């Protein structure tokens, strides 16, 4: 007897971490006995298509307050039973809830497009629609551009860039033979085409060979420290590394634009980067440096901002850093908080989902660094008043006041938090200031690994890359075989689509506009 039942799957259907509310869906043949323990409401009593206000429970602690809707199959999007949970829209919160279900074996994480696929299986939408959706999504988030890429080593990154270029070159070479044959001539075209075929083939083969040896070593996310000059970046950098040696040697890449060190976090190698200070400048060379720093920002997985809250230079509107997102903010020079007013806009920096460290100067260098936030149900939240920020709150009951959870104000959303009900292992415990050195490193490790977990929840980034590369290699060989047999160039281009689809999954869709631009940039076209 065939007893096969599709697994119960769960995932978030909303833009994680951005909306105030996120919708999680659990789909499958649901046995409420397996789910009851996670909900306060009695599941056997709920009616389909009604909305219930209830709580998500992890043992005795409350993870979140939610709205719950039940759709009984087949009257649902997937055609299966569906539980829809409207939770607070923070990424960590969503992850915590999903983890709770998954770790308890109630369901597994849905794969990309799996909900749509089930909907198709249950004849809710046509395959064409389901595949179309998947392809549009793939095109928007190719492996190389999706956040998964910032986990990969710079070398692989380079190879993908190269792959994109060479594919564009081949496609341009083929198109050149149709729209611009008169401009390049038969012979010229033949030469351009064979060169492009050879180069792309070579790149694909090389990538394929290496893919066999892919492993975790390929994962080396960047943790980069940013700030304006003199903010205390290097102090923080040294503080993390536990020494005050000024690191200038063993710089990979030999550029003087940044200093880097490798750190071993769990089994992941992380590269810690100290970047050149960012400042608006009319100096060409300095601007060039800023460009490089901003490029590093794009490439980094975990971004740290070091700010001196008393430095007005940071808060000028032309400072590019002011509008950028960071995962961690380190306030250097908190010692003056007792004597001087911090620059007001600095409160803005406390908003949003990020971790905050504060530090005091000690003996002329960066002293103890303390964590001001912990991982709460909607991401990092401010600790209770023990830390150095506490006096701050008391002193300025104005703008910073609202940070306290029982005071309403501009930072309002924070006040609805309930920072107590967090399971132990997600909570970074730190009572008071943490000394320099390994303690800080440990904390950093935790929050960086937390971010890695968010970006690649199942840790299978490398596997996905390998399987797409395998497929690319396969499609390429079929295509190559056709090039020797097919003289109809429009048919060849139509065959190239199969290669293009896999390339697109790695590096993104190539639009006809890209091809034309590439042609105009590289060939003298037009009479």
């Amino acid at each position, binding site marked *: 007897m065939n007893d096969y039942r599709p697994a119960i799957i769960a995932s978030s*259907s*909303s*833009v*994680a971490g*951005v*909306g*105030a*509310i996120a*919708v999680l869906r659990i789909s499958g043949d649901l046995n409420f006995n397996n789910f009851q323990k996670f909900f306060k409401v009695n599941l056997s009593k709920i009616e389909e298509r009604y909305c219930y206000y209830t709580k998500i429970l992890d043992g005795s602690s409350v993870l979140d307050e939610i709205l719950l809707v039940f759709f009984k199959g087949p009257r649902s*999007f997937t055609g299966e039973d569906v539980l829809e949970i409207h939770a607070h829209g923070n990424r960590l919160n969503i992850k915590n809830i999903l983890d709770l279900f998954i770790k308890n074996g109630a369901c597994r994480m849905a794969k990309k497009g799996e*909900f*749509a696929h089930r*909907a198709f299986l249950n004849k*809710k*939408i*046509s395959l*064409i*629609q389901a*595949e*179309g*959706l998947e*392809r*549009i*999504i793939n095109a*928007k*988030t190719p492996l190389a551009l999706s956040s998964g890429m910032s986990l990969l080593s710079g070398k692989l990154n380079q190879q993908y860039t190269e792959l994109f270029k060479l594919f564009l070159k081949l496609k341009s070479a083929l*198109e050149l*033979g*149709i*729209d611009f*044959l*008169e401009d390049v001539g*038969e012979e010229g075209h033949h030469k351009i085409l064979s060169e492009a075929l050879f180069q792309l083939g070579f790149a694909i083969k090389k990538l394929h060979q290496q893919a066999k040896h892919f492993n975790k070593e390929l994962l080396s996310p960047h943790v980069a420290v940013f700030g304006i000059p003199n903010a205390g970046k290097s102090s923080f950098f040294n503080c993390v590394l536990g020494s005050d040696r000024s690191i200038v040697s063993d710089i990979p890449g030999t550029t003087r634009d940044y200093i880097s060190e490798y750190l071993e976090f769990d089994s992941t190698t992380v590269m810690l980067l100290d970047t050149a200070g960012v400042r608006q400048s009319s100096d060409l060379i300095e601007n060039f440096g800023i460009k490089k720093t901003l490029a590093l920002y794009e490439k980094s997985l975990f971004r740290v901002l070091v700010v001196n809250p008393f430095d007005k230079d940071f808060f000028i509107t032309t400072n590019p850093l002011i509008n950028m997102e960071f995962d961690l903010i380190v306030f250097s020079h908190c010692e003056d908080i007792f004597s001087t007013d911090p620059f007001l806009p600095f409160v803005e920096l406390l908003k949003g989902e990020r971790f905050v460290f504060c530090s005091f100067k000690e003996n002329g260098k960066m002293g103890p660094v303390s964590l001001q936030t912990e991982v709460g149900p909607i991401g990092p939240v401010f600790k209770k008043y023990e830390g150095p920020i506490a006096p701050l709150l008391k002193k300025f009951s104005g703008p910073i006041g609202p940070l306290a959870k029982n005071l309403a104000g501009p930072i309002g959303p924070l006040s609805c938090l309930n920072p107590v009900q967090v399971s132990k292992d997600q909570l970074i415990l730190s009572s008071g200031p943490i000394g320099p050195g390994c303690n800080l490193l440990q904390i950093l490790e935790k929050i960086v690994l937390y971010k890695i977990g968010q970006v690649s929840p199942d840790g299978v980034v490398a596997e996905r890359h390998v399987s797409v590369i395998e497929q690319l290699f396969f499609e390429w060989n079929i295509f190559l075989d056709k090039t020797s*047999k*097919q*003289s*109809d*160039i*429009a*048919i060849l*281009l*139509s065959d190239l*689509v199969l290669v293009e689809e896999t390339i697109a999954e790695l590096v993104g869709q190539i639009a*006809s506009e890209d*091809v*034309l631009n590439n042609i*105009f940039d590289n060939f*003298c*076209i*037009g*009479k």
Partner: protein
Amino acid sequence: MSKTIYDICVLGGGHAGAEAAWIASEFNLKVAIVTMPNVAIASTPCNPSIGGVGKGQVVRELDALGGLMGKMADLSAIQYRILNESKGAAVQSTRVQVDKVAYQENVLTALRGRKNLKIIELKVTKITKENVFKIVCENLSEILSKKLIVTTGTFLGGKLHCGEIQAAGGRANCENSASVSSLFQNILSSGIRFKTGTPPRIDKNSINYKILEVQPTDTGAVNFHCLSSPFLRTLPQTSCHLTRINQSGLDIIRQNRNRSPIFNGQISGVGPRYCPSIEDKAFRYPDRNTHHVFLEPESYSLNTVYPSGVSTSLPSEVQENFIRQIPGLEEAKILQYGYAVEYDVINTQMLNHSLMCKEIEGLYFAGQVNGTSGYEEAAAQGFIAGANAALSSFNQAPLLLDRNQSYIGVLIDDLVTTRRDEPYRLFTARAENRLHLRDDNAVLRMAPYRSKFGLNNEIDIFSRNFLNTQNLISKIVHSRVYKNSETESLKKRYPSELGVKNVALADLLRRPNLKPTAVLRQEAENDGVFISEQAINCAANTEKYSGYILRAGENLDRMAGLHRKKIDPEKLATCSNISFECRLRIKKFTPQTFGQLSKIEGIRPATLIYVANQEL
């Protein structure tokens, strides 16, 4: 007596205007074409050729729809070329050199033949709209019309550059026209300016042809006009010649960089990258020291020769100097200097797919004023605007060409859905369904559109017959299977082919080593069926490409179904399940379909999934 109110008025007598007036007046409507005095109708201010890769297909599509250009090009052609002959039937195209004087005369005769079309030669200075459009002319006379099609080409705010000399003008020796904002006071404004240029014209008697490579006409090229006999030539055929500009000529240009309006900042309009001036070539490709120059005769009744490849706006004496460095042109006499023209274009995103302004009922735009370049692109838009103005006069549904069915559809869709920062030209690379958009099946592709006009003219009868013949051949192709007893004779005919046992005719047509048209012709004749060359071409290639088109079609469908899904931007812009940034972008770009939404930069996958799921 009350003043005449036209049903449709076409402003401008270029290729767009001529085509618009031609199709509009095929209907029972009162049509006027208002155009500048002293500017010939349907003139070819740049190279005297029509067709080309992609463009040739457009001319055939137009022709099959009942347009003017194909027929006129045939009547005036002095040379035919088949392009991409070695690259497969799907991308093969035709281009002709036309006698530009003959072309203008032929078009004028054709338009004059329309009894319901009035040609008015006046310069228009102002346009307003109350109940009807009021078109005010230079002599202060007024023309009233229910609908207005604007095809003013390069004339709006036109400014000519030849070295340091700048002058107002629409093209050489022609006045310009008011800028967009003063012509359409209170209706429209434009901030976009494009630029194009043309080479000097050379006296044919001053060219040393003896040392030049000859480019003869292709006798095998099939006429554009589908109703004429395929190889009929009206005018005597002639050749073009090929030479090149070399280092010495390019050096002269490079020495005069600061006298070039393109490089010294005098011109701010954006020119097309695919139509570079010789200055562009000299500076952008410093390592290349030779470029082709094609010498194309402009007309049997003119002495001018058009040197294709050396478009320029350098000062006249610099033109003189570098031209004489070109082999064969050592003694060249320049009859008219090259120049560049800068002009206003409108933002085509304000138009819908019938080329009408979304905001102003009855106002259409077509041709170069829409930021395109090329005669064929202009003509195609003129036709679409003209047909749609006519159809809407009868409250009929508009003519909307699918981009998967025609190059014209690609052109219109690209124009109205995207923004451009340089003049637009058609390339086959822009068409997703290229294997289907062929020369040979233009009639087949256009017949369903043409039939919507509800007319019963020569072309309508022809295209119905053509469809019937195709259906018939298709039946033969799919039912003819060669029996074992026929294998031997089949092997003799196709020695390169193995496995011709129990083979179907359709199979033979798809084999990569065989020429499908030759096979179909021969096999049909063997079976005693004689079919016209046009029908054979169409049927054989349709079969050859069918598998690929089907595959591509599935791909396109997968996307198209979703892409065409209508969405409600206002609703989405306030939807709390969509991130703030995405909502802002939706508000700004107001996408109407899922496809448009997915193309907006910065729209997140999660938003797409959410919207798709909502709309599915």
